[in-house]
Every structure is written in structure tokens, then in C-alpha cells.
């Protein structure tokens, strides 16, 4: 594992309710300096809420969030100071850039908001755009001129212009064509090696998360169900949901079809939170799972699972991330 440093953001048993609905329950982790954390989950998992909690757009119902050890105080001044250190990249590059503002202004906006000396502004904007692979982009051009990939680069530039400690990417490639997705992911990988920036990469795409993140959190119905080094989670998933998620990803060749298996049960949106939240779908469910909530516990070095009967041994072949057999490699 990379030598990560001090914790930047820490969640300590954070819970968030929206009225009667539980969006996040008892979330705890430490995001360390230099770490790239993947946050994986489907709709209703709570991953978006976690993001919003991290930037102070929501206040936790319970549990402190810490920035470098100090709990968030939800005053405007304190939040502004925290947000200065967080760069956010959103999913839709068509929505997140104001079409009426030239890109130079878009990228420089955080500098203005946080009152950085104006002499530097133009230069910094230009330099940051160069760093994201747009060195010749005219500062007075408008977002409409750029494709989805280009716009996302501009959004990343905007996120990085203040040289924040944390880069928060919420499904940054989900709206992009697959041939463009790689460009953005490679850019993020490059940025990661160049600086010590910590990153949170939220995605429903496990393969992408596997590439980018050294640690991963898997969420289901508001709870962390598996946390640990990405290689371990990908190679030896312990929680039945993680395995189910990996199994649901389509295969890569007509001769290696994966989806013929048993159907994934339809369940209602209201989850019984008394025991494990996964009981309605878990093939290995037992009585204790319904009555008692499984704690997130360490099962092997650095990996935690919330399950009374975590999976052991090798995962099924369809899910194993082996290299594609050489005989059938495309030329």
C-alpha cells in the first residue's frame, strides 16, 4: 500500500436521516493523505449522501465528521475553509459548467471566491488547464465548444485550481462515452502520481474503481458492508452483496456469458433495519442475520466486513479478475 499519511476526513459513526428514511447509518472511515478511496454502491446505497456530508451540504443526524481531526462546525466560515480544501467533480459535464461563462472565468471562480490575489488568477487558470491536458484552450472560449470529455477536464481544472487537499469525484465518467472515459480516468491517475492529493472516487462501476482506488468502501442501503484494500475486495470479495455486484457485471465475450444464473430477487424499497439490511436478497441468510445487526469487523489484514458468515476461499470463476486468455486476444 502507498505510504499514506494523516487522516484528512474522518467519519465516526455518522448517521443521516431524512425524516423517517435512513440514508446513511453508522458510517466510519478515515481518508488518509495520498489515499484514493473508492465508494461503490447502487441507487439508495447512501453514497451520494456521504459525499454531501463530506462537503457539509448536509449535517449528520448523529456522529461527528472530522477534518484533520477537528469536528466540522457547520458555520459558514468554517465550512468555507473546509471547502477550500475540497475540489468537486460532478457527473454531468453539461450541467456543471455554466454555458454563459467563458472557461477562463469558470476555472478561476474558486480563486475569486476564496480571495486569492488577482494578479495570479489568469496565470493559474491557464496553468491548471494545461495540467488537465488543455494547454492551448483559449480562456475566452465557452463550454459549448468542448465535447463531454473536454468539459469534464475543465471541471477537473476548476476543482484543482486551489490546489486542494482532497479531490471528490462523484461518478465523473458516467455520462461520458466509453472511448472518452479512459482519457479522464488516465488523467486522474496521472494527477494522483504527480501530487499527494487524496481522492474519493464514487462510482457504480467496479472495474473503474478497481483501477483508480487503493481502498474501497461498498455500501448497501446506507450501511458500509465491506471496506478494505481494493485488490482484496475485487479479488476475494467477502460480503455476499459485493459478490452479487461483481456477478452482475456483464461478461466480455459471448462464450463467457455470466448472467444465466439465478435471478436477483425483487425487493421493496423499505428495508428492515433490525438485522442485516441484505437479508431479503442474501442466498446464505440465517436466523441470526434477521435479528441482529452484523458489525463491521476485521476479517483479514485491513479488510472489514459486516456479515456473520463472510465468504471464504476463491470466488467463482466468472468473477475472477484474471487476464484475458492469450489465445483469444485481439490483434
Amino acid at each position, binding site marked *: 500500500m502507498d505510504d499514506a499519511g494523516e487522516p484528512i476526513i474522518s467519519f465516526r459513526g455518522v448517521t443521516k436521516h431524512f425524516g423517517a428514511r435512513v440514508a446513511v447509518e453508522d458510517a466510519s472511515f478515515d481518508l488518509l493523505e495520498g489515499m484514493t478511496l473508492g465508494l461503490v454502491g*447502487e*441507487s439508495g446505497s447512501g453514497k451520494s449522501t456521504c459525499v454531501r456530508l463530506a462537503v457539509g451540504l448536509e449535517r449528520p443526524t448523529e456522529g461527528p465528521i472530522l477534518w484533520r481531526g477537528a469536528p466540522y462546525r457547520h458555520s459558514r466560515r468554517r465550512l468555507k475553509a473546509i471547502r477550500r480544501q475540497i475540489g468537486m467533480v460532478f457527473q454531468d459535464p453539461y450541467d456543471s459548467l455554466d454555458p454563459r461563462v467563458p472557461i477562463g472565468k469558470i476555472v478561476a471562480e474558486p480563486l475569486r471566491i476564496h480571495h486569492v490575489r488577482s494578479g495570479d488568477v489568469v496565470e493559474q487558470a491557464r496553468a491548471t488547464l494545461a495540467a488537465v491536458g488543455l494547454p492551448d484552450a483559449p480562456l475566452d472560449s465557452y463550454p459549448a465548444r468542448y*465535447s*463531454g*470529455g*473536454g468539459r469534464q477536464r475543465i471541471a477537473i481544472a476548476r476543482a484543482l485550481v486551489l490546489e486542494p487537499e482532497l479531490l471528490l469525484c462523484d461518478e465523473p465518467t458516467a455520462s461520458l*462515452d*466509453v*472511448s*472518452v*472515459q*479512459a*482519457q479522464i*480516468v*488516465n488523467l486522474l*491517475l496521472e494527477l494522483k502520481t504527480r501530487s499527494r492529493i487524496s481522492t474519493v472516487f464514487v462510482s*457504480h*462501476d*467496479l*472495474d*473503474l474503481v*478497481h*483501477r*483508480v*482506488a*487503493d481502498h474501497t468502501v461498498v455500501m448497501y442501503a446506507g450501511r458500509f458492508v465491506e471496506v478494505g484494500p*481494493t*485488490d482484496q475486495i475485487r479479488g476475494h470479495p467477502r460480503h455476499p452483496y459485493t459478490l*452479487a*455486484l461483481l*456477478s*452482475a*457485471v*456483464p*461478461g*466480455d*465475450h*459471448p*462464450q*463467457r*456469458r*455470466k*448472467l*444465466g444464473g439465478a*435471478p*436477483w430477487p*425483487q425487493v421493496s*424499497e423499505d428495508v428492515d433495519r433490525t438485522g442485516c439490511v441484505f437479508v431479503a436478497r442474501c442466498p446464505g441468510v440465517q436466523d441470526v442475520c434477521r435479528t441482529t445487526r452484523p458489525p463491521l469487523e476485521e476479517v483479514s489484514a485491513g479488510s472489514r466486513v459486516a456479515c456473520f458468515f463472510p465468504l471464504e476461499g476463491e470466488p467463482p470463476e466468472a468473477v475472477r*479478475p*484474471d*487476464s*484475458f486468455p492469450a489465445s*483469444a*486476444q*485481439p*490483434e
Partner: protein
Amino acid sequence: MRPAPALEDPRGDPRIPPLAVEDLQVWYGDLQALSDVTFEVQPGKVLALIGETGSGKSTAALAAARLLPPKSRIEGHIFLDGVDITTMTREEVRVLRPRLGFVSQDAMAALNPVLSVGTQVAEMFEVHLGSSKSEALQQAIQILRKVQIPDPPAVVKLYPHQLSGGMRQRVMIAIALALGPRLLIADEPTTGLDVSVQAEILRLAIALRDESGAGVLWITHDMGVVAELADAVAVMYAGRIVEDGPAEVLFDVPRHPYTEALLRTLYDLRTGSRGERLYQIAGQPPSLQSPIPGCPFHPRCPRAKELCEQMEPSLEAMGGSRAACHFPLGTEVT
């Protein structure tokens, strides 16, 4: 109750493809969205149309289903069960609609928000079979059961916004299959859905295709979905088909550099290591507004030569598939 009008058995004459499209061209105003597109859907088989933004895949599906917006222009031929529907009036096409099931992306938008699910499904039976409201509701419940929706009598009373994304998409499929069509056109039905929900919809589609014997035209941007579902594949780029053929042939021996790039992207994603750069295709897909001369893929193609800028290649048979390329894979590039 009036007896159902005589619709052909879906396993009818296997010589007539449920859908055949010939030299199809589509314009939105002055912009050309499709050029010379030709393909066939065989009974009981899935043809996947794969492409990215601007590839024209959705346009092809909408054109085949005669659902293009009024401002568009079509040339070429569309044959539904051997019948040329290209120049038919809207009413003539309407009468044939029971033979063509259409499933679109984003079921939330595609369902009327102020009508109950039951009403919308039952409408199929009321309009085409002359069923009474109560009969149609019963028929609706039956078809909802077929698409594995739990507790259909309760679901028919609900409104679209009260269902999950996966359930809504199942309702759309139920509507599309309600009258046993010989052809199903699905326009990116799983885009935007969670991966586990997508898996469920794909499983459902496979089961229904096997059971009904209908031919399926499935539009997607995801090669993985193609791998799971397709018997035949057509790869689209900039409004053209650049390669087509049986799925296995395409995956094993891709001929067009774009196909190979898509496959490599997929494999790289599925099998690469943490921290490793992803296989990347340079540039971005072309837009309708700025068409590219010669081969539309040439600016991004690692094998491109001068010829590619000047002359657009046409689809030619090579081995078990067809590809539109001057220097296809498997030939030497000097």
C-alpha cells in the same frame, strides 16, 4: 369479447425476417444522421447495434419503428415482416403496431405520469383487441406476471413514480410484448439503471426472447451487454455501420479498428491492474454538425493512411463478417 385478430404466430415463416432495413438514410433538417444503413433481424435472434454518441444507433431504432420526430427525412427501405413500411401513412403503420414492440430508455419519462400502470398496460388490449376495461385489466395483470413483477394486482393501481427503475422498465417490456409481436426494438433500455437491475432486465430479455421466438433489435453503448445478449452485432460510427457479423466472429476476429478499440477497452477494463493506465482511444466521437471526410474514424485510427482521409470505405465481406475499412485488421499495413 371480440376474438383476437389473426396475428401471425411469432414462429411463423422463418424466411421472412421480422425486420429488414435497406440503404436507410436519415436527415434531421440538414444534418445527416444515418448513411446507407442495412441490416436484418432474424426470428428468435438478437441483433445488437452498438455505438457511442452520434453513432446513429438510436436514430436507426427510431427510424425502424417509424417513431422519428416530424422534422426528419427518411430515404431507403424498412421492411416489417416483409412489408415495406417506409412510406406508409401514420395510420397504416399504426395498424401494424401490434407486430412491433418498442422499449425506450428512461421508463419514467416514457410512461404517462398521471395514469396508473394498469391503465397504460390495459390500453394495449383495449385498443387492439377491443377488450372492455375490466377484461383489459385482467389481461394486463397476466402480462405483468410474465415479466416477473411481484404482486401484479397491487402494482396495476400504482403510478409510475411509485415504482423502482427496474420495475418501470419491466412494465415497458410488458407493454411491448403484450400482443405477442414478432419484433422487439429496445433502445438502450438498461442505460442509467443500476448494474444489478441491468442484469435482471438482461436476464428477463434473454428468457422472453427464448420463449417468444421474437427477433430483437437491441441498442446499446456497452460491449459487455453485447457479449451477454447478442447473436449478431452491428457496430455503428458516425451514422454508418462500420462492421457487422455474428457475435462470436466479431469478438474473436474484429476487422475494423474501431471494433477492436471497443473490445480492447472492454477487456482492459475487466482485466487490468490497479493503477495501470487504461487503454485509451484518442479524440472523441464526431458530431453531426461536423462530418468527417473519408473514413469518419480516421482521425482516431492508429492504422490510418492518406487513402482513409480521401475515400470513404464501403462494407466488404471478409471472413465471416463485413467491415468498412481500407486496412482492416488481419491485413498488412505498409
